[in-house]
Each structure stands twice: as structure tokens, then as C-alpha cells.
């Protein structure tokens, strides 16, 4: 029988007050109202702490890097230390057969109770040979691990929508997790996702023992319900039509809207402008850089990053739909003008013929 979070914290020398602080932080991170704190306390006191396995497939580990920078260290500490994070390639001390055994044990001993956190996409081409761990393909590991999982969380854009591995031409046929498992998957996109959002999602699953409210793309509504644009502090400049024209101009210094530098805020669903990064210090737009839309599907293929409109395929790098459209419209105008000239020449000929005929009749 495993321990509850309170039991293991108590054993480590945390006071009751510290435990309650932790519960409040966790409740706040998960977006509960104050009345929800009691629920958290109760859950952490009584519920056996769930086993967590953190899988790494085709990814860059930026999600893990983000996660360990969560702004509530007590939560991070508790989740990484106090929780049974039984398997994670990046942080675990065990290696080789020992590590793989730990994974097997976790799956076996916590059937239907453990939580799977997946970082990275899974390549499916050529039998999945492009990502193998311990002699097994990522796909078979995923199937094995997810079969008896209580919940599956897809960390980051790789696991949620494929990210850079799945960018055209997607040579390894990298596939997001939700397309491979037939269980509900919580997608937490972003490259990486915001640390506090990751923390909140995990907390929600742990505390309530259920999946948070998800939108049609499987993302928690709490954090992905609004666009970066909707909550951006530069939004008034957008509505006023005050735009930064280049990175080094006066308007950039004044903090105008970055829309014309290709800001993808208006088409990106994320909580950056609310939660912010690095303990709420800043987020890209606040630092003067346009949003690149890293939490949106296919953002690599909708480039360039500093251009508002995607390039038009097959017409070189600098051609947007506008360039092509202008060309087509101009060509049409030219065609129409040529047509008008030909018509006039022909009509004159006919008029002359008619005149000749009329004269002949008279």
C-alpha cells in the first residue's frame, strides 16, 4: 500500500502548515476557487499518491526543462520528489535494465491507477525504427504503457500535434499521441508548454482524479480557451492601428503591437499573456518579440515566423498569397486590356463591312 502525499511529506519533515501552503498553491495552480482548497487537502491527505511515468520519445526535452522551472517550487518539489515519479529518462538515477524494470514494475503494480506523461511524438514509419528505447520502438512502448493508465497527458506540441518532427515532409511519420492511443489524452501543446500550466494540469488530474474540461482539440479549456491576442497587454495598440514596423524602430521602443512582424497571437490559443513565463516575469510579446504560435498545430509549416501570412507553396520563399494574388490580378488586367484591343479591331472591321453593305443596298 502506497502512502498519501501528506504521509510522505510528514515523513520528510514538512510541517502541517507547509502542507497546507502546498495544498493552497496546488489548488491555485489548478484553478480552483478558495472553497476548493479543502478538497485538495482532503485528497492529498487520504489518496494514495499516484505513480507517474514520464515517457520521452521524439523531443528535445524542452518540456522537462520548462516543468522544472515552475514558479511554485513547493509544488514542483512535491510533484517530482514526493510523487512516485517512477520512470523518467531525464531525471531518474537508475539506468539500463534497472530503469526498464522500474517501468515494468510501476505498470504492473499500479494497474489502472498510474498516470502517463508523454513528451515527444512517436514515429510510425518503417516499423517505428526511428525512435527506440531499450530495443523497443516508441510505438510499442507507448501502447504498453498507456494500456492500463488512469490518465495520459501529452506534453508539448510534439506529443499534442507533432511539432517539428511532423513538419513537412515529416520523414519519420511522427505522430501525436492522441492518434495512437484510444483513450482520452490531455493535450498540453506549446514548445515548450508553460511550466505553471503543466503543473496545474498534473495537479488537476492528481487532486480530482479526473481529466480537466477539454476543448475539441483535447486541450484544457482553462489554459487554452483564449488566444494570446485576447489577453495581450499590447492589444489596445492593435485596435488603434499602432504597429511596430521593424524590430529597431521607434514604435518597437514604444511597445506597439507586433502584428506586422508576424505575431501569431491572434491565431494562437495559449495562456502566455496571463500566466507568463519564469515565475510570471515576462512572455515573448512583453519582451518585444512576436508570438510564433508554438502551441498551434503546424506552426513550422505556416512560416516564416516573422511574416504575418504564410508563404505560398511552389513560388519561392518570399511569395505570399498577396504576391501571387497581385500577379494574377495584374495578369488578368493585362489580358482584359489585350482582349479589349482585339475586340475593337474586330468590331471596326465589322462596322466597315456593314457600312459597305448598306451603301451597296442604297
Amino acid at each position, binding site marked *: 500500500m502506497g502512502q498519501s502525499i501528506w504521509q510522505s511529506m510528514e515523513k520528510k519533515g514538512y510541517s502541517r502548515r507547509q502542507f497546507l501552503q502546498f495544498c493552497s498553491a496546488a489548488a491555485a495552480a489548478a484553478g480552483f476557487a478558495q472553497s476548493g482548497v479543502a478538497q485538495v487537502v482532503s485528497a492529498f491527505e487520504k489518496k494514495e499518491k499516484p505513480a507517474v511515468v514520464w515517457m520521452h520519445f521524439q523531443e528535445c526535452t524542452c518540456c522537462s526543462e520548462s516543468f522544472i522551472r515552475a514558479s511554485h517550487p513547493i509544488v514542483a518539489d512535491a510533484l517530482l520528489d514526493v510523487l512516485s515519479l517512477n520512470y523518467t529518462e531525464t531525471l531518474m538515477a537508475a539506468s539500463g535494465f534497472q530503469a526498464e524494470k522500474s517501468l515494468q514494475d510501476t505498470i504492473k503494480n499500479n494497474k489502472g491507477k498510474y498516470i502517463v506523461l508523454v513528451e515527444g511524438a512517436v514515429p510510425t514509419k518503417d516499423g517505428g525504427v526511428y525512435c527506440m528505447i531499450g530495443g523497443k520502438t516508441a510505438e510499442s512502448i507507448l501502447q504498453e504503457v498507456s494500456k492500463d493508465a488512469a490518465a495520459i497527458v501529452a506534453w508539448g506540441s510534439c506529443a499534442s500535434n507533432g511539432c517539428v518532427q511532423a513538419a513537412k515532409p515529416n520523414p519519420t511519420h511522427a505522430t501525436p499521441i492522441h492518434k495512437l492511443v484510444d483513450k482520452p489524452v490531455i493535450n498540453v501543446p506549446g514548445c515548450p508548454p508553460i511550466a505553471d500550466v503543466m503543473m496545474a494540469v498534473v495537479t488537476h488530474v492528481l487532486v480530482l482524479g479526473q481529466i480537466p474540461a477539454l476543448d475539441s482539440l483535447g486541450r484544457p479549456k482553462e489554459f487554452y480557451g483564449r488566444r494570446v491576442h485576447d489577453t495581450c497587454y499590447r492589444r489596445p495598440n492593435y485596435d488603434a492601428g499602432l*504597429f511596430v514596423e521593424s524590430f529597431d524602430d521607434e514604435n518597437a521602443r514604444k511597445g506597439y503591437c507586433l502584428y506586422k512582424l508576424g505575431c501569431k497571437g491572434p491565431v494562437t490559443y495559449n495562456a502566455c499573456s496571463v500566466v507568463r513565463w519564469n515565475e510570471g516575469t515576462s512572455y515573448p510579446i512583453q519582451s518585444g518579440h512576436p508570438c510564433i504560435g508554438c502551441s498551434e*498545430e503546424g*506552426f513550422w509549416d505556416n512560416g516564416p515566423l516573422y511574416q504575418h*501570412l504564410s508563404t505560398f507553396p511552389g513560388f519561392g520563399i518570399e511569395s505570399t498569397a*498577396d504576391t501571387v*494574388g497581385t500577379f494574377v490580378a495584374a495578369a488578368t488586367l493585362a489580358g482584359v486590356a489585350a482582349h479589349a484591343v482585339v475586340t475593337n479591331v474586330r468590331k471596326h472591321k465589322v462596322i466597315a463591312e*456593314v457600312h459597305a453593305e448598306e451603301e451597296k443596298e442604297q
Partner: protein
Amino acid sequence: MSTTGIAAKSKFANGHPADYRRVYVWEMPVRAYHWINAIVLVVLCITGYLIGAPIRAFYASEAYQQYWFGWIRFLHFLCAYVYVFNFLMRIYWGFVGNKYAKWNNFFPLTKAQREEIMDVLKTDVFQVKLHGAISTGHNALAAFIYFFTFLAFCAQSITGFALYSSMSNSWIPRMFTWIVPLMGGEMSVRYWHHLFMWFFVTFIVVHIYLAFYHDYIEGRGTISSIVGGWKFDKMPEKKD
């Protein structure tokens, strides 16, 4: 010697004015639809282009002092609603209007329509004929192209509402939220919405030119017909 329509017409017209009769082709709702659509489409193209590539129109030292980009977007959304309901009205009129407005004009279902398409192609594109036997209402080719334009209307309305849905609680745009994931995110929806704008720009150029062209070669009031509704139709052939 040429035996084109112009020659034949001139012969009739020579001292026989009664050989042409007035036909009330475009009923008032059709004309209203045309002009509302024309105005709204031009405004949509201009504001849409500006939304994609805003210009430095006005300067203010503080954002609260102006709202011009907001107004551009408002105008775009407003016109979009007018455009959609105007289009729905036209679809309705395609069932209750006169024979020139009827829905079946827009599909080349009959052999006569298909033959006319060839005839119009010869007249307009290949220029081997100066004036074929072109029907009084929409010619069959134009009507068929309008059918594709209607499809573009639908595509533009659907992608437009899909983009608008995230900032609206109204049920009309909310009906199209599912389009966004289907098309792979808002970036690509916006891309297609933007690309379709150029279809309309090209259509406007060709449409205006061809309307003048047909007026010019047919000489029966094509241009004025969309203002007054009357066209002039050649009377059935009379043997002298």
C-alpha cells in the same frame, strides 16, 4: 462576307426600330442583390486586405486616442453579415423569381445551355465570333461561372465565420467552430480566407470587363440593364 450577328442586326435596325423589344430581365430584388453584393464585396476586399497588411494610416501618441484598425475590422465583420444574408436572399429568389433569376440558370443541365457555353467561349475567349446567339438573361457560361462564385461565397463565409467564432458568442459564427481543427488550425484557415480574396479581386476585373464587352458587341443594353432591369431582345426572325 461576314454573316455575324452585328451585320444581321444592323440590317434589321436600319429603319425597323420595332424589331427590338424591351424585356424586364432583372427584377428589383436581383438588382438590389447585385449592387449590395458589389458594394459589400469591394469593402470586404479592401478591409480584408488591410486586416492582413495594415498600413500606417493615422498616428496617435496613445492607443486610446484612436480605434481605426478596430473600425476596419468592425466594417469587415458588418459587411460579412450583410453579404451572407444578401446571398441567402438571392438563393431564395432563385426559387421564386422570374425565369432569368431561376436556380437552374446556374447549372448547365440542358443541351441548349451546353451549346451556349461553347458559343460564348467562341465569342468571348477564342474570338472567332463577334456575336453568337446569346440568351437574354445570364449567358450559360457566365451563369455556370457564377455557380463557382457561389461556391467561393460559401467557402469565404465558412472560413470567415470560423475565424470570427473565437471572438463571438453569437450562434451563427459558433456553428463554424469545427472548421478550425478540420483545416489544421487558425493559421491555415486565415491563409485560405486570404487567398480566396484574390479570387474575388480577379472575378471583379473579369466580370466588369465582360459586362462592358457584351454591351459593346451585342448592343442591347447589358450595362444599363443592371440599373433599370430592361434589356433589349431581338424579335423572332421575320422574313422580309
